[in-house]
């Protein structure tokens, strides 16, 4: 026995003493599970000193290794079989190494067969790698990933709900506008028939009232149509494409009824931007149309400019009309809000509300600068897509 021990100790010191220098846990077992080598890293990790475990059965200190699932595979090593791996997922650890917070190291263990060529004795070399940090990080990463996936599902659900509500709103607006306009048409016809029925009997006062009635009906009709347009403006089914601003303005000016003495001025070289053409056209025609409609002179001058910034385009529509009193600067963008005598000019109070909605959709803002008698300048931004 003494000789055997000496020979084994020489075998270990000649071949494996460097294992005291490595940052992994290493121990070597004899066929009878007694410990032949226990490196200093393991002393530190387990708190079990080499002198207290050397030549003792490892099973006395770590009875977990008696379990059949370990024993059968460890035994194959003593028959000279291929190395055996115990992964951290299936076996959190083989040798418990306390971490101080009541938990234990997560380990990957590999067992390799080593043979003393002189004696042909086979030993099992256990190498333990500490995977605690990696396991924690991966588990944390997986939790975050799962949370993100849940959030994504939640967001998609919300988005679907928003889309559904938007669709319903659009349908509602359509139905309402359609159903409300039908009785209006009836009122128009009834007024016509009253006129016809009264014939020569109708006095001036009745005729005035009937004209007034028809005007209000016509205004109501425009307002309902405006609601429908507004509801379409907030639906987000935008198709973005390249828009040549010069061509778009040419088209708008061409379609507007502009007095011949009016000058609408813009550069020949305007940028081509990515936008929703129909919606942008609606914004520009509403703003330019307003400048024309509300101008107090026959020879008005409107200047349109576009400036390219780093993150957006800034549009300005400036006129030399009567201007807007500061008290209306906020109010005019609200739905159905007009400035006092506006209804007489056929305004419904919807146009600028639509403009603001669309600009918000372009991630932009709109503002105006104006004083009574000094014209008005509308400025809005349009995000670069």
């Amino acid at each position: 026995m003494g000789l055997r021990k000496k020979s084994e100790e020489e075998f270990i010191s000649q071949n494996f003493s460097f294992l005291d220098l490595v940052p992994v846990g290493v121990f070597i077992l004899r066929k009878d599970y007694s410990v032949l080598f226990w490196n200093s890293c393991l002393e530190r990790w387990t708190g079990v000193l080499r002198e207290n475990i050397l030549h003792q059965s490892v099973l006395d200190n770590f009875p977990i290794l008696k379990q059949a699932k370990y024993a059968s595979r460890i035994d194959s090593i003593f028959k000279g079989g291929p190395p055996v791996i115990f992964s951290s997922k299936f076996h959190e650890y083989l040798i418990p190494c306390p971490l101080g917070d009541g938990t234990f190291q997560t380990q990957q263990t590999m067992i390799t067969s080593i043979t003393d060529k002189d004696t042909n004795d086979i030993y099992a070399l256990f190498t333990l790698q500490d995977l605690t940090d990696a396991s924690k990080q991966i588990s944390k990463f997986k939790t975050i990933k799962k949370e993100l996936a849940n959030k994504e599902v939640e967001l998609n659900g919300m988005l679907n709900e928003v889309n559904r509500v938007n669709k319903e709103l659009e349908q509602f607006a359509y139905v309402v506008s359609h159903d409300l306009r039908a009785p209006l048409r009836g009122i128009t016809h009834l007024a016509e028939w009253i006129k016809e029925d009264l014939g020569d009997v109708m006095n001036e006062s009745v005729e005035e009232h009937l004209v007034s009635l028809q005007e209000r009906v016509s205004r109501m009709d425009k307002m309902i149509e405006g609601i429908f347009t507004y509801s379409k403006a907030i639906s987000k089914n935008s198709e973005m494409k390249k828009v040549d601003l010069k061509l778009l303005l040419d088209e708008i000016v061409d379609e507007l009824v502009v007095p011949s003495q009016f000058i609408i001025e813009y550069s020949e070289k305007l940028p081509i931007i990515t936008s929703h053409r129909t919606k942008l056209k609606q914004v520009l025609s509403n703003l330019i149309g307003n400048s024309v409609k509300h101008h107090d002179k026959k020879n008005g001058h409107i200047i349109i400019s576009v400036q390219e910034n780093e993150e957006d385009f800034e549009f300005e529509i400036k006129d030399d009309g009567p201007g807007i009193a500061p008290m209306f600067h906020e109010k005019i963008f609200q739905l159905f809000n007009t400035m006092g005598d506006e209804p007489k000019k056929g305004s419904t109070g919807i146009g600028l509300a639509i403009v603001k909605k669309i600009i918000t959709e372009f991630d932009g803002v709109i503002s105006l600068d104006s004083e009574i008698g000094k014209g008005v300048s509308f400025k809005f931004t349009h995000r670069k897509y």
Partner: protein
Amino acid sequence: MILTEDQIDALGEIFNIGVGKGADTLNQMLDCQIKIRVPQIEVLTLKELKEQAEKFGPKNVSTVNQKFDGSISGNTMLAFPPQSAQNLVAALTGEEQGSPELDSVTVDTLSEVGNIIINSVMGSITNFFKQRLDYSVPNYAEDAIHSLVASHVGDTNCSIIFAKAHFSVENLEVQGEVILVFSVGSLEVLIGAIDAFGDSLGES
């Protein structure tokens, strides 16, 4: 080397015994019901392996490799196509299927599964040899199957036993395929040993 039908059958049986034992070890260890079988094996050259592997799926697969040296020298590889890797790890760990990219813990898990199956197959093969083989440390790698075989065996004229193994986990309806690639410098020694064993059975 051209093998007779009997020799191919015998090799198939050896592989089936090996993967069966591997499944037993997994079942005992994890208290699960995994079954693995090898319906048939093929003996291929490296060039033919490339063609077969390309048919099988994506170029790069997760593999566990075990090199051996001695009476016969070569490499045994267990290759996991990505979906099979995910299915198998999820079934064995009882966790939900993770992302397609393999993290180090999943790699560690695949390494143990591969190690268990390869060792059982090696055990089944080495039963025919009186001498022990020397083994290197098992290694995990992701690459094309034929490139890995070429780099491990280092001999383009090596013989390759290619076995598609089918696994299924009872109660979980999880199944898939893993590929066993056993490559040796020369098949003669292995076949000789198997034939000798068969002869000895006939004599007794």
